């Protein structure tokens, strides 16, 4: 069989190739790729909810965890939580102990003798309401989503209970509701927000360690908190666009 003569000459091939590659390079310079830590741009208008938690102020009373359970009818069993508190204890020899007996609802008992403790602190945890949520990305049916206001919600009537999102959440903030059989998580008490009330855990915090507000409003409490404290999110390397900012977050917290 004779070799087929190509329709395009070698010269034209290189010409076209150079134009395509060069064009892409020039175009990408004009629309720079987002830096790793900037997961998603927030909307310029409307509300964009964010949360601030001051670890220095948390006294580990666990009232937020129990308030959340009562407000949202979360099952009482000690492994279903939308909001819970962990006690981190770093001993003098460097070992890290993390405890969360019943999410902190019944109070914490110091398990390590005081003279062995290097430092100890409480970390209240809840849904981070990520702007680029891993849990939303894995949902095969579109039953979990980010609202235009930045709240990650579950559509109970549409969820098939496949548990992908439970595995995908790097913060462990989801569970399968034992009665409904669907995924369940923090809704930032959206049913209270629409009535002008604070979410239950923010309402109840006795030391005001939890701050909540609109990140788009320069005068909001959460923006004041972010300006005046050194804040960090948990697992920033995962690029989830977490909107839960902790003051005084230690690197031990996972």
């Amino acid at each position, binding site marked *: 069989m004779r070799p087929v003569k190509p329709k395009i000459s070698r010269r034209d091939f290189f010409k076209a190739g150079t134009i395509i590659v060069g064009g892409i390079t020039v175009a990408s310079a004009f629309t720079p790729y987002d830096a790793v830590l900037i997961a998603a741009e927030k909307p310029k208008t409307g509300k964009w909810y964010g949360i601030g938690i001051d670890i*220095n102020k948390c006294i580990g*009373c666990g009232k937020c965890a129990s*308030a959340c359970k009562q407000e949202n009818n979360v099952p009482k069993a000690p492994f279903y939580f939308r909001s819970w508190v962990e006690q981190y204890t770093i001993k003098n020899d460097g070992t890290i102990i993390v405890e969360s007996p019943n999410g902190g609802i019944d109070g914490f008992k110091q398990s390590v003798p005081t003279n062995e*403790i290097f430092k100890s602190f409480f970390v209240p945890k809840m849904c981070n309401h990520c702007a680029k949520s891993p849990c939303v990305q894995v949902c095969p049916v579109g039953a979990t989503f980010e609202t235009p206001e930045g709240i990650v919600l579950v*559509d109970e009537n549409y969820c098939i209970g496949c548990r992908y999102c439970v595995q995908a959440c790097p913060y462990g903030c989801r569970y399968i509701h034992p009665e409904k059989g669907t995924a369940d998580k923090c809704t930032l008490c959206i049913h209270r927000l629409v009535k002008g009330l604070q979410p239950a855990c923010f309402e109840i915090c006795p030391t005001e360690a939890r701050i909540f507000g609109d990140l788009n409003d320069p005068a909001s409490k959460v923006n004041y908190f972010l300006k005046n404290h050194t804040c960090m999110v948990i697992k920033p390397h995962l690029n989830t666009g977490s909107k839960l900012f902790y003051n005084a977050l230690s690197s031990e917290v996972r």
Partner: protein
Amino acid sequence: MPQHLKRLVGVFAVFIILFLILHYLLTPSSFGELGHYRAKAIPENELKELHYAGSEQCSKCHEDIRKDKAIGFHAKLKCEVCHGPGLKHALYADQFKAGQLPDSLILYKPGERKDCSVCHQFNAARLKIQFDTINTSMIHQVNSIEHNPFDKKTKVEFKCIECHNPHQP
């Protein structure tokens, strides 16, 4: 076009039409309005039942306690922190006479030692000086067994509220 290709095109067309019909029938009406989800799920989530009323509701009837509390260490504490969710109580309690409230409307009255020690029991993690300029107070911590020992003879534990008024500790 050969005969077998014509048949194949026909079969594909039938499948595509069937898919489009099923897709139309099975997709909820509000799906895709705001994104890849049912837009109606947002109002459904907003319609959940409330349980916590907020402290403004409490002081409508219990103004005396609010005044008591306002000058004590617990001034910033909301009522529902200790007493639990009280929206039902706030909505329906005035329909009954004092002392005749049904059990479902009576709020929790914390009086046991464990209720206080949730916040005030000594714990290394609670030992902090708060550098915030607005809130400079530290929480009072005690070792409740040393501070208020059990009765040696009867082994009965004394309650914290026998000495401290929780509204004005």
